[in-house]
Every structure is written in C-alpha cells, then in structure tokens.
C-alpha cells in the first residue's frame, strides 16, 4: 500500500515542480498532522478523541492571552501545553477510571473546551501575539519553513515513541489485548491516560503553529478539525479495532487531503465541488482500504 500510494503521490506531484507550492501543501498539512499523529495512537487503543479541535482552539486562546500579557513565547507555549495535557488527562481519566466510552467522554469535553474558548474571549479574537510567536509559522530554519521542521520532528518523535519504546508497545497492546497487558503487570490505566494526555499536549503544541499562522487566536478557529484528523488517520489505513494501524499511513492520509485541497484551489474548482470531492476522497480511500484487507 505504501508503495502504491507513494507512487500515487509521485505521479500526482509531477506538475508540482514549484517548490513554494510543495512547501505550501506541507505547511498547510502540518497543523492537521500534529493532531492526526496522536489521534493515530489513540485510535490504536480502540479509542477516539473528538475534543482535539476544540482543545486546540482553547489552547490557542490561552497561548495568545499569555503571549500578549507576558510577551514570552515559552510561557505561552507552556500554558497551551499544560491546558492541552489537562484536557487530555480529563479524557483519559474518565475513560480509564470510570470506563466511559471515549466517544462520549471526548464529545463532552469537546463541548466544554469550545464553550470555554467562546466564554473566556467573549467570542473575540485575541491579536497582537508578536513576531516571536509568528516565527513558528512564517519563519525559516536553515532555509526550511519552521512548520515543516516541526512537523517532521513531531513525526520522528512519534515514530520513535510508538515503535521503539515500551509506551508504544503498550499502545498496541491497549487496543489489541488490554487484559493481557494487565496480566503482564503493566499499569494499564496509567498508559491509557498517558495516550490521551499526549493527544491533548500535541493539540496544545499545534496551538503554537495555528496561533502563529493567524498571528491571533480566534475562538472558533479549529472547531471540527478533529474529524478531519480522524478521517486522515482512517485514510492512512489505521482501523478502529484491535490496535491495527500504521503511523506513516497517517502522514500519507494527511498529505492526500492536503494535496487534493491544494490542487482543487489551484484549479479554482468551485468550492461546492471541492466539498464533495473531499467526501468522495474519504470514502474512496476507505473502500480501497477494505478491498486491501480482503
């Protein structure tokens, strides 16, 4: 699948000799990727996190607020990460300790986070975050746009975490056979909560890029982005069951969506058809997936 999909991108990229445009696709996809990566882990545990988009939004608000007040990016980022982690912990705790279905829990926290984002800002966007923040989207590091660097770094980190650490192994086990993990004497709940905390924290981190991108925080900026993330993960070939999944597939899934949107924009395809095209892409990709599995 990797090969064929890879070939697909190669062929679809033939027209895209324009480096700037490729960079665009990458940069636009980064924020989604930052959500989709931890979402992959969460789905590997047979879980789901519907609150990510809302948490990301709220994190933007917090980040911007702190940045405006203190002017310190570090503090702001710390705040955003803390908030994300807190929500992640709440999700994880309710799932692990109360045994609530993840869908329900995160549907609830989705409401809470988006509500807080609106209430705290009075639905106003917060501006004037300053160039130190903006740098993280607009800036370049050794000639490479910072978001691409961060995206790549995030992927590598996740990859290492998932495939080369105990935590990663247990993520697969949480979805594949939780009882076995428990009998192996592993503190299952701790790791389960850990996965959700990771998800929240990543949302908090993504807030840095999103805020940088808008050089402002808007209380509805990323509402609903979690669905795109979930779709991307699924397109990437991670199933909702038995811890059957593949991290790099998620990257491909995110890129596929990114390439499609970008291409349709270049084509100036009417927005209505773009909307339909995205739906068709999601379904088509999943159909192919199911054919692959049978």
């Amino acid at each position: 699948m990797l090969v064929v999909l890879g070939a697909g991108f190669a062929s679809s990229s033939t027209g895209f000799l324009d480096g700037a445009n490729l960079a665009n696709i990458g940069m636009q996809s980064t924020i989604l990727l930052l959500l989709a990566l931890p979402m992959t882990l969460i789905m590997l545990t047979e879980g789901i996190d519907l609150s990510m988009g809302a948490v990301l939004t709220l994190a933007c608000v917090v980040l911007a607020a702190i940045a405006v007040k203190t002017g310190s990016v570090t503090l702001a980022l710390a705040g955003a990460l803390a908030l994300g982690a807190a929500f992640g912990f709440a999700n994880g705790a309710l799932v692990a300790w109360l045994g609530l279905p993840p869908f329900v829990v995160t549907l609830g926290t989705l409401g809470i986070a988006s509500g807080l984002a609106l209430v705290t800002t009075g639905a106003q966007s917060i501006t004037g975050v300053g160039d130190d923040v903006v740098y993280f989207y607009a800036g370049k590091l050794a000639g490479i746009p910072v978001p691409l660097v961060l995206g790549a770094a995030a992927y590598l980190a996740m990859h290492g975490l998932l495939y080369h650490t105990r935590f990663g192994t247990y993520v697969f086990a949480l979805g594949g056979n939780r009882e076995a993990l428990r009998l192996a004497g592993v503190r299952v709940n701790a790791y389960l909560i850990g996965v959700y905390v990771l998800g929240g924290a990543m949302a908090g981190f993504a807030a840095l890029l999103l805020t940088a991108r808008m050089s402002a925080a808007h209380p509805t900026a990323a509402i609903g982005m979690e669905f795109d993330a979930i779709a991307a993960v699924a397109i990437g070939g991670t199933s909702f069951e038995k811890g059957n999944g593949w991290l790099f597939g998620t990257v491909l899934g995110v890129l596929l969506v990114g390439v499609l949107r970008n291409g349709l924009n270049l084509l100036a395809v009417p927005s209505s058809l773009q909307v339909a095209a995205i739906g068709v892409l999601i379904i088509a990709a999943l159909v192919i997936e199911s054919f692959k599995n049978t």
Partner: protein
Amino acid sequence: MSTLTLPRLALSAEFRTIVQRLLAVLALCIVLSVLSGAFLTVGNLVNVLRQAALIFLLASGLTLVILTAGLDLSIGANVGLSACLAGSVIQATGSPLLGAAVGLGSGCAIGLGNGLLVTVLRLPPFIATYGMLWVVHGLTYWFMAGATIHGFPPAFRALGSGYWLSVPIPVYLMFAFLAVGIGFARYTTWGQEIYAIGANPVAARLSGIPVNRRLVLVYTVSGAMAGLASLIFLARLNSAEGDIGEPLTLPAIAAVLIGGTSLFGGVGTVSGTLVGALILTLVLNGMNLLAIDANWQPLVTGVIVILAVSLDVLTHRGGSASR
C-alpha cells in the same frame, strides 16, 4: 459462574434508566420554575416541546442506528439538502405534497447510501457517514449556489408552525413517532433483530438474520427521519439554506447518548432518547430565560453528556461501556 446468582434484568435496567432521566427532567423543571417566573408558563413549555420535537425526530432515527453499534454523522447535512430540495420543489410546483415527497425521498436516498457504504463496502460507519456528510454538503452548496429559498404556502407551513388545540403540530409528530419508535423497537421482530445485531452481529448472522438488509434499513430510516425533520424545519423557518441542519448533528447524538443508548449497540430505547432530547432542550431554554450568554451552551451540553453516561456506567447496566 460466580455471578450466576446476581441476575441482571435487561428490561428493568432500561426501565431504571428512563426513570432516572425522568427524575432529572423533573428536577430541571423545578429548578427552572424557581429561577425564572417565565418558565412555568404554557407558552414556554410549548416552546420547549416544540424545540425538543425537532431534535427528537432526528435522534429517534439515529437511535436505531446506534442500537446496531453504528453511527450517522450525516443527518445534519441530510436535513440541509432535503430541506433545499423540498423547498425548491414546493416553490416550483406549488405542491406541498410533492415537496414533502421529495424531502423524504432525498432523506431516504442519503440514508440508503450510508447503509450501502456500511454493508456492501463494509466501511466503518463513522468514516462512511462523515464522508457522506461532505458529499451531501457539496451537493447542497452546488444546488443552492448561495441562494435561499423562502415563502411557502400556509398549508405546508402548518407542519412546522401550526397548532391544533393550541399544541404545535411538531409536538404531535414527536409523540406519534415516539409511539412508532417504541412499537418498532420492542414489538416487532425486526426491532428484536436490530437489538441482536447490535449485541453480536456474527451471532445474529449465523442465526439467519439478514444483517445487511437490517442495517440498510436502519440507516435508511435514520435518513428518512432526517428528511422528515427537514420538512418541519422548512415549514417552521419558512425558508431553506444550505447549512441549516449542521448545528443539529451533535445535539441529536448527545440526545441519544443522554437517553441511555450505548454506543456499543444492543442497549437503549427510543423513549430514552425522547427524555434525552427534553433534557437538552430544557437546559438551553432555561439558559435563554435566565439570559445566560449563549456561549455557555456547548459547555453545559458537554457536561450533561458526560454526567448522563457516567451515571449509566456507574450503575453499570450490562454491556454498555464495556471495553
């Protein structure tokens, strides 16, 4: 075997949930009537019921889907498209009946589409219906091209804003479909089969139940209910826009969950969903009466969903939230 002496009575459990919920509703009513004089007026209660009706009609179809451990994220988009199609037909032909037929038809068609994606192509319902959501939105935008359709014959508008014995028509519809829903779920063999499919699709299939056909059925019904809701919407608003339905999707899902239906399938009731819809509406209505900033609404809804479901899990009814 150790638990053999602890009987779990499926029925009584469901019954218990309903009672819990009704108590919650009662409590809400008392609190609200204390907080706001305007609450306990006939007019307001009628409002609550009318607003609950719309959510319930959407959620009732969705309940069946969720009973099969499925999900339908496309209902909101479905309402949008169905309303626009129905609306334009009514304007073109002047015939409410024809329009209604078209609205229901498109609702069914979209539902059928979901059903086929889930069964024939074996896609996970979440993704299948999410993809469908985008496709339907696309069609709607393309069809409407940013315009709105408005102004329908009074005969049709009665469906949404009309009264009979000073009770809004939608409320009658709500109770009618509550009866239908309960009847279908509890007193037909198809209903039984749907519960069984939710509880264990493999066993259901090997017991000779045409699982795929039943699944297609529930998704189609869910679509049809969206179509019906779209008509009421249309009649009520006296206009159709592309995205009128979207804000309803999550509330509808919330109503089902608050009503005590398990996402893992096989457990839940349509009557529970009605109570769920009532709870949601009461809270939002109360917030409006108390002039609480509308921005708090998503937050409150979220809290209620978590509370309701934790209640079910803590008084653990069989099967729900295992895993």
